[in-house]
């Protein structure tokens, strides 16, 4: 479904203000944490205090008799298992504890204090089991297995190789890499990188209010994925998915954290057991310790490059820590092909991504997921390549960036020259800028320009548009407003543009799985694209029906009519015709109320046969490119990095609401600055996350940031509605890469690890940082695979 030339550009493209701002500014918006129902109970979860152990005894009888307690639930109440690719994750620990913080039991009581008192009365005894806390531990030859029964799990997607502590392995092989590396005319460049975990710190914690009425669960929750909550809750509880209704109030920040099931099933079980509504809200400490973080990762890249700058061969190993359960990292093994394997035209290539089990809190999705660290690694490696062959890093990039007709890592053919012109655009921006002041203050100065490749996570979406007789339209989808504004701005703009209405006259229904059709969720840059395409299609159906009725009323052919400014008129004759409300009212009386439905899913871009194994997406339907430029100053006495300027050229396809996109870019870049410079989650030797609150986990403050200079690159090909691409996810993609390359240029040392905290930078300046060594990544690429790459087999 693509745009129709008749759609009014004027009303689809505008800096339309968001309608939810005034109430958010007055404290009136009721997020999930603000919902208090009559008779509501308060719930709390008993969590394991060790990273690995066997539950020797669990007795809830005393807790159940504590004052105010209305229900206690345990693993016995949740028989199912969930996961992505493999069903490896129960709701409660069953016999075995796999991470510090894993749920053991949940209690609902009249007050939260009573619930906590009752948790303390649960009699639980845990016998310690061997622990693997790091990927190096997990990959050791005699490592204890986090999931000794991994062979028995239900496989939900065939093709991924698994074994021992390798939850999932995905590979890409295109061309003869050995031959490329054996050429006599190439330099071989070998780089290793390591990054830590990042916490989203969404301001609204995971929160849910559940009730159980007429044999069905009603879950009100702070999520990005209402249909995932519906289906996964049902699977864990062993009930039909149709018995679960999910509605979503405004969400107080997601960033990918809420792209998976969280605490919803606990509240659902307790509501069914007690017959009362149950409120369950994670404390900030629970949010910090069990976050579904952006995963820590370890990366090795080797490239064979000719002296005139052709990349004839590339190979890489990417280790991604999934924590105790596979979750999102299983899927994200796919993305290495499109991020680390992106940006540049490659001769031969082979990549392996391995999701590794450890006895740590499960990781999850975070804005531009694995792209952020793979782009950091790729761009730093690219600078090392350019340095080795003595080529200017920008000239090297310009020579090699993906262009029209180039092959991606998986053999997909890219369409259009996008990154090249975007680099030109960045040159213009940089040249026009004033030189930052004060380069003689003793600090070291550096700059870098880096590129990035990301994608839109398309997939199924549904929409209904109901035309009301008063001339307004109601848009019904499962889309959630998480803060990005897509549901408040782009979607009503698309419907309004199609129907000639003001976006103010498009009512947007909040997500309700009983009211709207299936949707993958709000994330992956897909809201404007997938929900937008479904909404556009639904609005087109309404438009066609209205024009048919209007054609009789106005006595003109439907193809001669236009819809604009709330009227249906004969083209070229402003003021002719009728009000849309008149036509809608006539239609309602004559043939019944008018509505339209729309649906969308991905186009299924092909990869080259035989290239990929264990992938969830073989090629990307909508690539999204970004060019970032950063200038830094490094204090040689303290190791402090100051970002002096930041510039972004972002491929947006078409900007429906430029001002909203600018807001996403400023916000995404600042989240990336936090990741690059100071945000890091670490795990103590006891297996517990060390950062348990805002005091120990530092996010960027107003004093840390700079205004980002922004240029939106429009016109790149896209199957998105009206030529759009997702614009909210990608701004964080290249930030760590840009900062790291700039700091490396400033201090003249390779940057191999993030974040660049002052102590770490100081160690580099003083040559005291130990060399990064990743002995658990085998020297020969093929020795990192559980079995040789092949694309036909199952486990």
């Amino acid at each position, binding site marked *: 479904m693509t745009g129709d030339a008749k759609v009014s550009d004027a009303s689809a493209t505008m800096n339309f203000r968001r309608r939810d701002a005034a109430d958010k500014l007055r404290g009136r918006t009721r997020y999930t944490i603000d919902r208090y129902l009559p008779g509501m109970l308060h719930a709390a979860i008993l969590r394991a205090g060790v990273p690995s152990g066997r539950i020797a005894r669990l007795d809830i009888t005393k807790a159940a008799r504590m004052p105010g307690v209305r229900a206690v639930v345990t693993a016995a109440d949740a028989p199912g298992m969930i996961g992505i690719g493999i069903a490896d994750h129960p709701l409660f620990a069953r016999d075995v504890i796999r991470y510090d913080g894993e749920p053991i039991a949940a209690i609902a009581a009249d007050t939260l204090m009573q619930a906590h008192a009752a948790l303390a009365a649960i009699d639980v005894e845990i016998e310690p089991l061997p622990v693997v806390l790091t990927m190096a531990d997990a990959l050791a030859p005699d490592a204890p297995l986090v999931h000794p029964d991994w062979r028995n799990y239900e496989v939900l997607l065939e093709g991924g190789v698994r074994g021992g502590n390798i939850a999932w392995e995905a590979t890409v092989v295109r061309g003869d890499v050995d031959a490329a590396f054996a050429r006599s005319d190439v330099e071989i460049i070998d780089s290793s990188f390591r990054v830590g975990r990042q916490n989203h710190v969404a301001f609204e914690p995971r929160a849910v209010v559940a009730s159980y009425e007429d044999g069905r669960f009603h879950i009100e929750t702070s999520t990005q994925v209402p249909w995932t909550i519906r289906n996964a809750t049902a699977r864990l509880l062993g009930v039909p998915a149709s018995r679960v209704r999910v509605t979503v109030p405004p969400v107080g920040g997601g960033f990918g954290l809420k792209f998976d099931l969280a605490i919803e099933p606990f509240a659902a079980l307790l509501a069914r057991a007690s017959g009362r509504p149950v409120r369950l809200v994670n404390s900030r400490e629970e949010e910090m310790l069990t976050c579904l973080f952006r995963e820590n990762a370890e990366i090795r890249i080797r490239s064979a490059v000719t002296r005139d700058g052709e990349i004839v061969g590339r190979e890489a190993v990417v280790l991604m820590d999934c924590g105790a359960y596979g979750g999102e990292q299983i899927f994200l093994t796919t993305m290495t092909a499109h991020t680390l394997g992106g940006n540049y035209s490659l001769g031969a290539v082979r990549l392996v991504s391995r999701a590794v089990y450890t006895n740590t809190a499960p990781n999850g999705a975070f804005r531009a997921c694995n792209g952020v660290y793979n782009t950091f690694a790729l761009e730093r490696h690219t600078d090392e390549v350019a340095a080795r062959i003595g080529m200017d890093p920008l000239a090297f990039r310009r020579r090699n960036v993906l262009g029209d007709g180039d092959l991606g890592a998986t053999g997909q053919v890219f369409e259009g020259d996008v990154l090249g012109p975007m680099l030109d655009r960045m040159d213009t921006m940089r040249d026009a800028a004033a030189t930052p002041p004060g380069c003689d203050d003793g600090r070291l100065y550096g700059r870098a320009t880096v590129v990035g490749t990301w994608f839109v996570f398309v997939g199924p979406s549904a929409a209904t548009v109901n035309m009301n007789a008063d001339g307004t339209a109601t848009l019904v989808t499962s889309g959630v407003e998480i803060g990005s504004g897509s549901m408040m701005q782009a979607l009503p703009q698309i419907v309004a543009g199609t129907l000639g209405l003001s976006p103010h006259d498009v009512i947007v229904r909040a997500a309700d799985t009983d009211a709207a059709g299936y949707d993958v969720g709000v994330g992956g840059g897909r809201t404007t694209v997938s929900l937008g395409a479904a909404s556009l299609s639904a609005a087109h159906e309404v438009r066609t029906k209205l024009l048919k009725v209007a054609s009789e009323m106005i006595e003109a052919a439907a193809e001669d009519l236009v819809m604009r400014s709330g009227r249906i008129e004969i083209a070229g004759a402003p003021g002719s015709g009728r009000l849309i409300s008149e036509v809608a009212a006539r239609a309602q009386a004559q043939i019944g109320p008018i509505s339209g439905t729309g649906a969308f899913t991905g186009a299924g871009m092909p990869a080259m046969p035989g290239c990929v194994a264990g992938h969830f997406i073989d090629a990307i339907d909508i690539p999204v490119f970004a060019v970032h430029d950063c200038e830094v100053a490094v204090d040689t006495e303290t190791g402090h990095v100051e970002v002096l300027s930041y510039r972004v050229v972002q491929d947006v396809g078409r900007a429906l609401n430029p001002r909203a996109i600018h807001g996403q870019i400023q916000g995404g870049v600042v989240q990336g600055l936090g990741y690059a410079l100071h945000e890091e989650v670490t795990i103590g030797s006891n297996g517990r996350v060390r950062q348990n609150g805002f005091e120990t986990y530092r996010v960027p403050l*107003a004093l840390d940031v700079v205004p980002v200079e922004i240029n939106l690159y429009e016109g790149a090909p896209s199957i998105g509605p009206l030529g759009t691409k997702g614009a909210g996810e990608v701004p964080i993609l290249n930030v760590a890469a840009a900062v790291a390359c700039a700091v490396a240029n400033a201090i003249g040392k390779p940057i191999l690890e993030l974040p660049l905290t002052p102590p770490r930078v100081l160690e580099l300046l003083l040559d005291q940082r130990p060399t990064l060594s990743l002995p658990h990544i085998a020297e020969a690429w093929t020795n990192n695979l559980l079995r040789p790459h092949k694309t036909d087999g199952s486990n």
Partner: protein
Amino acid sequence: MGLSLTVNGDHLTSTADPITPLVDVLREEFHLTGAKPVCREGFCGACMVLIDGNPTPSCLMPAALAEGCDIRTVEGLAVNGGLNPIQAALEACDAVQCGMCFPGMVVSLTHLLTTRPGATRDDIRAALTGNICRCTGYERIIEAALLALATT
């Protein structure tokens, strides 16, 4: 025996334990859910209220200590359900994203606007040190504050 609190000009009584954080009394007893208990450590500023005119994190203040004070929450900043100058500027600048931090931002910036009409860009950035925003990257908020300062 209860607590007597003056909130947005209303005289209210609470039966809460005197050491209950003020934010919980406001939200759970008085249904003023604008203040958000995000970190409960006094770092994020999302629960900021004015106590006798001074921005104060309501998560760290025992409710009993607020007795006899003039407590003003984000719900009480604008008259007749309108927007005060900083709220209007934040709306005009399209600054709001998820919105969770904004009740606290509005309280802090309302105070800045009334006490430091000559504040500069750097003054505003410094004044926001106790208010964290995870969505916006702050720039629009700073712009809005400058706009409000210029137009009031």
